[in-house]
């Protein structure tokens, strides 16, 4: 009985830990959906606490966006920035197609971010909200 309990605990943990990502583009799309939901949420914001919650959720979603973008970039990690090799890769059909798909999702995110930013404007001077905004400022380039 004890062995069964322990084995179930272990198996459960391994299963839950395995519930990870699928593909970077799918992840990006689901993050964009999440950001769209956050945009809807931002329309209802009435006070600084709610503004804080919206930004906290946005930071969480933007982390997923960062991970997906970095995964897409991994393909070029053996090249040098600005190198001829990379310029060539940029011309490839594969790159163009991926970028096209990426740009579609990006423009959705762009629209949502613009709306969120506007909706939170009255609360941007609050101390806690400000801190969350500072996190957002470096979120994409930190690890």
């Amino acid at each position, binding site marked *: 009985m004890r062995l069964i309990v322990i084995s179930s605990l272990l198996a459960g943990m391994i299963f839950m830990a395995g519930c990870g990502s699928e593909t970077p583009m799918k992840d990006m799309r689901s993050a964009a959906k999440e950001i769209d939901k956050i945009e809807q949420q931002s329309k209802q914001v009435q006070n600084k606490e709610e503004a804080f919650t919206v930004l906290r959720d946005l930071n969480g979603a933007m982390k997923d*966006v960062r991970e997906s973008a*970095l995964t897409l970039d991994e393909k070029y990690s053996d090249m040098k920035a600005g190198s001829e090799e990379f310029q060539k890769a940029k011309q490839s059909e594969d790159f163009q197609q991926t970028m096209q798909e990426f740009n579609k999702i990006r423009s959705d995110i762009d629209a949502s971010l613009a709306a969120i930013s506007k909706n939170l404007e009255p609360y941007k001077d609050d101390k*806690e909200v400000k*801190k969350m905004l500072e996190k957002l400022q470096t979120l994409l*380039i930190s690890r």
Partner: protein
Amino acid sequence: MLKGHPKGLLVAFFANMGERFGYYTMLAIFVLYLQANFGFNASQAGDYYGGFLFGIYFLPILGGIVADRLLGYGKTIALGTVIMFVGYMLLASPGFFAMQGKVIIIISLFVISLGTGFFKGNLQALTGKLYDDPKFAPNRDNAFNIFYMGINIGAFFAPHAATGVVNWMLSGKNFSYESTIPHLSNLQATPHPFLDKMTNTVQANFAGVQTYTEKLQHFMGEMNFAGGLQEFITEYPTTLSKGYSGAFAVAAISMLVSLIIFTAFRKYYKHADITEKQKQQKAAKEGKKDETVKMSKEEEKKRLVALGLVFVTVAFFWMAFHQNGFTLTIFARDFTVSDVSRFDYLFFDLRSFLPLLAAIGGLILLLRRKSSTRNKAIGGGLLVVGAGLAYWAYSTFAANPKIEPQLFQHFNPIFIVFLTPLIVGFFTWLRKRGKEPTSPRKIGIGMFLTAAGFVVMMTGAFKLQSMTGLSPYWLIGTYLTLTVAELFLSPIGISFVAKVAPPRFSGLAQGGWLGATAIGNLLAGLVGKLWDIVEIWQFFALLVGLTILSGIFIFSIMRILENASKSDQTSQE
């Protein structure tokens, strides 16, 4: 505290302290080194880190077999130290000799793990053997508490030594330490078309968003770097890498110190440095009667089952406890306020923290009723000097000091060092009244204390629903509770293994204990992956639940464990 203990304990204490100082010096910077040197992301670095930790705690099983069957404890321990020295030197070499080195890194990590495997469990087994003498036997639990303190003195100073060496190397080129530069340099050096576009998108909607190029240029300005951006992103990581290599060389030197201590003072543990097999061989060679302890197969089986059950349970403890270097550090970075008051900063700067602790120790000596006049005078001196030095350090702090997340790591070892005498005193006080819990009960209590530590985190995580960051005292409180739990569980567990292990498997059993730690480390990594999937409070609630279940499990098998530790050591076959 050392009354009633053999001198060999001090040799083990200092040899262990030297080895752990080197190990933790290396560990403090290892992930940062991998990221700076090879541009690894957290997940890639985590794979190396996890594999290495697994080797460190799993290979003692091999070390135990080598000692029990072939070389004996002393020789295996000394050999392990030499192997570790070679490993740390290999690890230091790429930075100094500009060697291309992922392969070298992997080889050196394996060599260090192998050396640790030969050293760690066998030193514990040898320490346990010192207490087979009935004169010392009642002090076995306390001995391992003291032994454990040695580990933590080494661990406490190690990150500061590593940081010191790295900063010294950087300052040679007028650089200062900035943890994000290697990552930013990597972003700058290779193409990131998708990340660049996304950064521009966020930049267009929120003021103050910086690109990695802008951030790097900001650091160049701060450090008055005269060259260009390309030069900066090459020179800074190279210098940093040399600094890390310097720290690995320090680790290698501390292995030599450990070896010198262990071999020079052999006379203090020589009598205990004999395995059952060696005893039998000696008796046969000298034509004497074999006087080794013979245990029936049934008795051996009973003991091995008890050990196995404890190993399974403590794996869950290490799973929870080793969140300290993983998710608790992420929590410190992302959800704990980094701008603190000068008073709070007293606990994060060694120049103030150590004198403060000395002053507290002095105050205790001064107020203790049983203290002699001499001790009261020492206490008074410590109080005045400690408080004076702490105040001096306080006066040098900036108005709003910033705390780095890795600084939280020093609380666990320092709490161990200062709480050990209290816990040892507490157990001795209970023993005198006939109320000291048995070793398995202490382990069970330790599991519940671990759960209590994570209840603190869970409560803090609830508060995060409405604020950006918590006060650092939440984490400090958790570290304090987890440390008390560790003192109930880890040294006592090692002592339990030393007591219960069938004599012919002493080394192997200590290896098994460390093997359970290895599995706990693996589980820590697996559970840690849930950090990004579930809510933070749910993550800590899971740890609370698992540790409570483990505590209940230990108490449910208490009879088996207590019978194994009480059973007659001399039962004959």
